[in-house]
């Protein structure tokens, strides 16, 4: 697959961050990153603007050393997004807004988490769920119990673990009969 320019509007000083290798090239205003990813199954290089980069100060459970990810919103993938580790092209997650999968999905943010995320305003938060995609894609599940909370303004994120039993760790994205969950695809505005 050829390199995909994800954000063509932003230009600037680019850094080629290929799992450790850094090179620079000069462009116009905003910084662009060149990162390597294996999304879609093949190694490719994508260009993302710096404002797609999220800091995960604690890493992600199972990937504690991965402190920076790029949240790639590719129209081809919508409503899915791709969360790519900047530390390893082989580490990435397909993510989705859990509000698409379950009505009334809501959560509390603990004080220490709010502090870590620098959250002082609910409107700057965004919630995402990591998807597990098995070979049979229709058996895809979403980790509703362990959402990612993102401070969109400060670009800081953390995966939290909920104790609310309504939200399972393996929530089927598609219904048992192969149909899509009723709530999926329902439009809701921010």
């Amino acid at each position, binding site marked *: 697959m050829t390199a995909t320019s994800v954000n063509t509007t932003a230009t600037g000083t680019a850094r080629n961050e290929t799992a450790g290798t850094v090179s620079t090239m000069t462009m116009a205003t905003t910084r662009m990153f060149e990162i390597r990813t294996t999304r879609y199954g093949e190694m490719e290089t994508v260009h993302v603007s710096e404002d797609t980069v999220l800091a995960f100060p604690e890493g992600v459970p199972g990937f504690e050393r991965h402190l920076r990810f790029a949240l790639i919103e590719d129209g081809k993938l919508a409503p899915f997004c791709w969360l790519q580790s900047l530390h390893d092209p082989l580490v990435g997650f397909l993510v989705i807004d859990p509000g698409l999968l379950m009505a009334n999905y809501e959560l509390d943010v603990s004080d220490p988490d709010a502090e870590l995320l620098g959250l002082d305003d609910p409107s700057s*938060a965004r919630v995402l769920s990591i998807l597990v995609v098995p070979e049979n894609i229709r058996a895809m599940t979403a980790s509703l119990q362990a959402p990612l909370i993102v401070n969109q303004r400060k670009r800081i994120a953390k995966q939290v673990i909920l104790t609310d039993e309504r939200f399972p760790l393996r929530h089927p994205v598609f219904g048992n009969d192969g*149909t899509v969950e009723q709530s999926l695809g329902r439009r809701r505005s921010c």
Partner: protein
Amino acid sequence: MLVLSRRPGQSILIGKDIEVVVLGSDGVQARVGIRAPREVTVLRRELLKQVEEENRRASSGAIGVSVASLGAALGQIGGASRAGLPCVPLRSWRTAPTPPPDS
């Protein structure tokens, strides 16, 4: 590891402000209550392990996802062209009271 024997109703203090109370035991399960400041995260260890494992499965599984198969899934979801994603409401900023340990 420090090992202590406690009777139901007795407790253990960890530092100044964390208290672990033994509520009872039926020989199979022990029930404990925990009093801790809000900034202390209390989790069942196996839950964290499960999340770690789920994340590893998510990362390795996602690598094999092809555009075509995702496209098929997207077709079913019917949201491929939606602009912007909805937001999940955050109920509050404040910590909910420390959940009681389940029995």
